[in-house]
């Protein structure tokens, strides 16, 4: 696995690496403040590249995922992913 580096500012710190342990490469992102990990394959990355700005703005809403109210479902569902 190739560690590419750490992308950090005063608001977040994320380790970025290319994970080649599977049959192909994928990007591994680790939120170093919590240890939470997400993998992104090539098509997911391409989709992000092509996503409209409004999609990214919606993603940055804390209530959208990480800090959403309990009655709206699990806030940390991404942790359940393989």
């Amino acid at each position: 696995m190739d560690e590419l580096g750490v992308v950090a500012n005063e608001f977040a710190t994320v380790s970025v690496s290319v994970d080649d342990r599977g049959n192909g490469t994928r990007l591994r992102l680790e939120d170093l403040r919590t240890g939470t990990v997400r993998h992104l394959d090539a098509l997911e990355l391409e989709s992000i590249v092509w996503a409209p700005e409004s999609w990214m703005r919606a993603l940055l809403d804390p209530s959208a995922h990480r800090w959403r109210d309990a009655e709206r479902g699990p806030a940390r569902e991404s942790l359940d992913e393989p």
Partner: protein
Amino acid sequence: MTTVDVDPARTDPLADRIRSLVLPDRVHGSIYTDPDVYARELERIWYATWVYVGHASEVPEPNDYVRKTIGPQQVVMTRDKTGAIHVLHNRCSHRGNLVCDADRGNAGSFRCPYHGWTFANTGDLLGFPFNQGYGGSRARAELPGLGVVPRVESYRGFVFASLAVDGPTLREHLGAAAERLDRLCRLSPEGEVELTAGWVKHEVTANWKMLVENETDGYHPQFVHSSIFSISGSGIGALYSDKSTAVTRALGGGHTENDLSPEFRRLGVPMGWAGTPEAKIPDYVAAMRATYGSETADEIMINGSPHVMIFPNLFVAEIQLFQIQPLAVDRTVQHVTAIQFAGAPDLNRRLVTQCVGSVGPAGMLLADDAEMYERNQRGVAQRQPEWLDLTRGLHRERVDDDGHTIGTATDETSMRAMWRHYRELMT
């Protein structure tokens, strides 16, 4: 019914007082120490006129940001994804926390550390945690984002902002001072300066106006800075003498300069103003001649860099740039950096070294001035005599071909001009 015509000036005792404290040839000591005067300065000057905030080169890439100030106000200068520059108040719209803490960084959005409210670098509110407490995400449209400074304009990369919605344009505000920034930029073979050398902050226990006055006071260098001049063998002291052909000039709008270029022309040495022989910066000299042609390049390199105080807070002192920030009536910070010229790496290295020696943490130039500022602040608190004299050179002031009032290199023409402008703004 009887109506009474009220003269607004007559109902403003503080304005009356300031008029009595600021006279054409003297100012009262309390103008530097009175908290009521300082409070009005914030409203009438720092939060009303154009104030220098930062330079575009400090946010070169999309989503770069730097923390800056407008007087005591904390602001963030950002460059958004499209390249546009914004100046935002550094205050969360939820509970008022400072949103940005780092001096600089790269971020398309800012998340307040207190409750997680998140803002775009344009100031827009992107969201907040657990939004059911506000009735859901639709509340976002009703809640405020970061405060946006209403007017932001730049000239030659120098970014100014005004907290006032209306007023003169930046170009009108700068007036003749704009040409001094042109003169500065011409010293770059690429026509641009870059403020990328990093900043040193010098805090002094003194009123901000003492610094503004001192920046173009040509009377003090031979006394206050005699030690650094003697150690370095500098010829700067001689520029500020009665024999010097340099002039002090009122540029209008409170902007002033020590124009040393007549003296540099008389001496006729390219780069003499920087104390750097051409032989030590061959790449720079070659690049200048390639850009401008030999004759014009030599003229530019002889005339040198400006020594201009752009009211109220931008001071360009040939090789270094100061940003003045009042914190209180008797506390002021000078943010200072070495000016860097685009396309001039060999010159830039020398300028950084020179600035370390003059205005760095152990620099010998600014430390001298700081000592004078603090002694002055303590001095004006004494009861007698009550006034500070501003008459030096009053009898020999002239008007130059451009209609600007000028005095000799050591005259107090610049102070009188600054105070005239100050009086207009304050009353």
